[in-house]
């Protein structure tokens, strides 16, 4: 992984997000618009992203929406994270050997979901509704960029719910391994929407305050937003922040919304990822879990981890009490945190003070610890019973 870009509620770049995790300062705050605590990307951060993009070659691709609108937000987040990840190489790396994988769950729905009921009632004409509804394709955030670069390499927009971001890395590793691409730019963006806030709310999956992954009495998640991009390449000699040694994705075939209670699907994904990486489980130093803070998710993941590691589990962390759950972007944002932690030789802590659930039977990491970490296992789970696991290795950039 030779390039990385992040937009999060903490700001631009991986550093502010990582510092929030180190300090244990949650980015979750009351959200009047959605009525539940969320992790929003502040306007000042979006303003900075707009400025950076305006001064870059990517301006035509990402600055074509009205400033300050819901339609502009995912474009700014996507464009800024991509700009950071490309670094000095710029868009020139996009040739026929460069793949592009983007992940999202809801895309630009925030820009048209409010108008849809008015259109359905006949209060606005189809033509008037089309001015916002034109953004409905989930390719929207990258449409301008695809036009700019002509995008001659392989391209995918993955929409496999909350596992999509991690799946993007699984697929990138596969493309590089089978020679479908020589480098792959992987990204994910998610913004807060009424659809997801009310949707997760009606399943009673939202926490009324800051989420408490792996805690006793945990009640649910905090929705959040963000974007992350990474550049992956097969060139072993290039300085790199880290490597994706292996990845796998599986289906539960159990329930549309609940993970398998015994964690069968995520266990299988972890086993396959380790096997693909040719790394036995004792060589894993840290697990960065999905750890949403719902009773079902954390229990399912813990069961799978016990099955995989037995009594010798490495420390397990979820950082969602800090940054919330950015759905389709969560896997990629959290993988960025993992690479940064390994680079610094640190294991991040759970970042909440609530009593841990002893029935889970896994060694949850409470606080930040200075310790060399060579390999980390990253997990994600999503609606539809989709699971993804990644085996990540520390890079040589210090």
């Amino acid at each position: 992984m030779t390039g990385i870009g992040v937009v999060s509620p903490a700001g631009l770049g991986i550093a502010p997000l990582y510092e929030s995790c180190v300090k244990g300062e949650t980015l979750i705050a009351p959200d009047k618009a959605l009525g539940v605590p969320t992790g929003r990307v502040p306007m000042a951060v979006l303003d900075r992203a707009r400025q950076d993009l305006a001064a870059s070659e990517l301006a035509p691709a990402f600055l074509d929406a009205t400033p300050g609108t819901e339609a502009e937000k995912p474009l700014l987040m996507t464009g800024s994270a991509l700009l950071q990840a490309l670094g000095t190489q710029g868009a020139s790396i996009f040739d026929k050997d460069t793949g592009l994988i983007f992940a999202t769950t809801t895309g630009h729905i925030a820009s048209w979901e409010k108008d849809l009921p008015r259109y359905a009632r006949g209060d606005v004409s189809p033509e008037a509704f089309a001015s916002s509804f034109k953004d409905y394709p989930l390719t929207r955030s990258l449409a301008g960029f695809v036009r700019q670069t002509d995008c001659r390499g392989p391209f995918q927009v993955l929409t496999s719910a909350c596992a999509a971001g991690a799946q993007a890395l699984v697929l990138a590793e596969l493309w590089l391994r089978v020679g479908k691409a020589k480098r792959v730019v992987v990204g994910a963006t998610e913004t807060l929407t009424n659809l997801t806030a009310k949707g997760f709310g009606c399943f009673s999956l939202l926490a009324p305050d800051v989420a408490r992954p792996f805690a006793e009495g945990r009640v649910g998640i905090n929705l959040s937003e963000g974007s992350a991009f990474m550049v992956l390449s097969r060139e072993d000699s290039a300085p790199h922040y880290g490597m994706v040694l292996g990845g796998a994705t599986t289906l539960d075939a159990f329930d549309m919304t609940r993970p398998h209670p015994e964690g069968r699907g995520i266990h299988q994904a972890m086993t396959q990822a380790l096997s693909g990486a040719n790394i036995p489980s004792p060589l894993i130093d840290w697990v960065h879990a999905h750890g949403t803070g719902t009773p079902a998710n954390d229990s399912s993941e813990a069961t799978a981890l016990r099955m995989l590691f037995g009594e010798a589990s490495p420390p397990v962390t979820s950082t969602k009490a800090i940054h919330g759950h950015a759905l389709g972007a969560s896997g990629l944002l959290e993988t960025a945190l993992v690479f940064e932690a390994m680079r610094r030789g640190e294991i991040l802590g759970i970042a909440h003070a609530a009593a841990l659930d002893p029935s889970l039977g896994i060694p949850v990491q409470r606080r930040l610890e200075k310790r060399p970490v060579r390999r980390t296992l990253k997990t994600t789970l999503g609606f539809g019973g989709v699971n993804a696991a990644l085996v990540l290795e520390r890079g040589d950039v210090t």
Partner: protein
Amino acid sequence: MKPLRCLILAKGAASVSDTAHLESDADFRKASVPMMVATLAVQRALAVLPERHEGEVKDFGLVVGVDHGELEITREFLCTLADRGMARPFLFQSALHNATLGFLSLRFGIVGPGFTTSTHYFAGEDALSLADSLIRGGACQACLAVGVEVTSEAMTPAVVAVRPVVDRPGSGAGALLLGSEAFAARTGLAPIAELRSLAAERVGKGLEEIRAFGGFYGADAIEKIARTFSPGQSEVLSLEKPDGSRSVIELVTP
């Protein structure tokens, strides 16, 4: 390393009108129309699988290509919320683009690798390409590539307003069973075709090349192959899109 060959071993297609009998079926009580039509397409593709190999379906890969996603369910969820202040769990879980993948996984007991891809006009082509990558990369020996789209009648005027060159959006589903040579040999399935290459020119050449398409939808590449390709043919399918972009799929007789 010699690259694996990816073979098309079975195909199935279904129309929305085929699903009428499923509406009273208890197994489909919580199914949207895209879930139903995709299920039928997969059932038809799997019909050729010898009974002694049916147990292997659980390990298949499953890739669903869909562009609009669950537009009708999304409309229903948002309108129920706006008009009655009610958020209904079933509508939310079915509103996500990934819902059909989850339903098919449950319906057929598939626990192999699963993806949903939504690359607008190329959702079908990209589902096919992704299934091909999974097999070539050894993630599975066989994979179902499913293209599905069901256009909401209520949303059609808005879709047409966004895509003025489309006569009317189309609906349907197609499913292709792809497999490695080893899988074909083991199951005795005779290959229909080999997927030789798949290329996409994603950037339209301009308004002058846009022409009206009847019944176009983003995931229809798979349905076109499932309905029109005959074993023994070699064919280069050039699929033009409403904005002048296009894909070229080369299928050859193994």
